[in-house]
């Protein structure tokens, strides 16, 4: 069970010509692996995340998905801001085939949102949004969590509970923060100039990233 990318290209139309963001990305993410992907700003991290999450199609190349992969969990993603956190939890639970009430109970006990659970998501701070997203994704129980940047949960009760849960799950973390990769991942890759290079040794990956 894995998520595989084979020679993936992605380009977007510009006013003149096209912008080539990914130029032949190949990689394999096995079930239970915790992989960090490091990239500087503007190297196409978000594009890669959307392609990994299956919400954008590559211009060329193939993606094979034989394990369940979460939606890209990050700051903005996947919520209807006029609806409450509980309503959003119910909606996401329903589309992934989970019981709505159980999911809301889990989110209530895990995300530490208190009264805000029944307030519109539009009123949330960015930390609250990312806790909500992470909590819902934990309730759905994916084989692999796809996390885009915002893992600023730190050494809080939530942060420790989340890290403990991740020990038992797969993770693809796309970020520009080397410290997060060292803390959470067992393997790392660097995204640069539209291609992805994997390193079995995290220190080597970090050294390459720091020299960019």
């Amino acid at each position: 069970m894995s998520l595989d990318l084979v020679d993936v290209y992605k380009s977007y139309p510009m006013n003149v010509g096209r912008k080539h963001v990914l130029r032949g990305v190949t990689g394999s993410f096995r079930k239970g692996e915790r992989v960090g992907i490091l990239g500087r700003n503007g190297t196409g991290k978000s594009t890669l995340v959307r392609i990994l999450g299956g919400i954008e199609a590559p211009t060329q190349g193939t993606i094979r998905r034989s394990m369940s992969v979460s939606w890209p969990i990050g700051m903005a993603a996947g919520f209807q801001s006029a609806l409450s956190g509980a309503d959003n939890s119910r909606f996401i639970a329903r589309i992934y085939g989970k019981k709505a009430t159980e999911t809301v109970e889990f989110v209530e006990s895990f995300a530490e949102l208190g009264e805000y659970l029944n307030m519109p998501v539009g009123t949330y701070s960015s930390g609250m949004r990312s806790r909500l997203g992470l909590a819902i994704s934990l309730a759905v129980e994916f084989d692999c969590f796809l996390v885009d940047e915002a893992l600023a949960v730190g050494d809080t009760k939530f942060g420790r509970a989340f890290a403990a849960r991740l020990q038992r799950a797969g993770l693809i973390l796309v970020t520009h923060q080397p410290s997060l990769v060292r803390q959470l991942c067992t393997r790392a890759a660097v995204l640069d100039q539209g291609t992805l290079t994997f390193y079995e040794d995290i220190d080597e990956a970090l050294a390459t990233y720091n020299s960019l």
Partner: protein
Amino acid sequence: MRVIGALIIREMHTRFGRQKFGYLWLFFEPLLLGVMIAVIHNLRGTESIRSNFEFFAIGYILFFKFRGIVNRASSTISSNRGLLYHRQVTLPDLFYARHIIESIACTGVMAVFTIAGVAMGGEFPDSVVKMLSAMMLMFLFAQGLALVVGAATSEWEGLERLVHAMSYLMLPFSGLFFMVEWLPAWMQEVVLWVPTVHIFELLRDGQFGDMYRPIYDLSYVFGWILVSHLIGLTGLRLARNRLGLE
């Protein structure tokens, strides 16, 4: 189906808020408009209020449904963009969910109107099946157009205004205000090019039976439904690949 069910519940929440009263509005809006148009026609016409009510108010619901589905199409993608972060959610699902809500509401209102008509001393509809078939055909025809409009407006936003204007301008030609047999022969030929005219004739056939001589060709309507769905679904597939998410 799971996704469409979840979308329907979500759409109801965002559209009517979480207050229970909000759902009533869905019924109240066509009800109010339908009664108004019947009253206006009664003040001007010589026929009794009952037949006016049956002809125009019930007919108006069918048009109301058409307009509701097609006019909402241009905002469907933009107002649900955040949901596309979940790859289960496809663009056509967003449309189907909205159309189903609209159709259930309008069918409910039509049932209430029909029962009210009977209570006011009218005759029971000649064929409820034909009336429901007309609702179903209007649902499918409007859905096909909505898919096309949704795909087109995601590429060219300016089209939205044109679509709104067109949906109002269509009112006199929609088949709501006349039976085809009332028109001179040359005009009959012209209006029978409009697919909704056939659907209205079918509705009146179900409502009034032998009272009028309805003229319709359902295979023509099915042709429109098929072609519009093909174009619309293809267009949405193209639109999905071009759609950037924040």
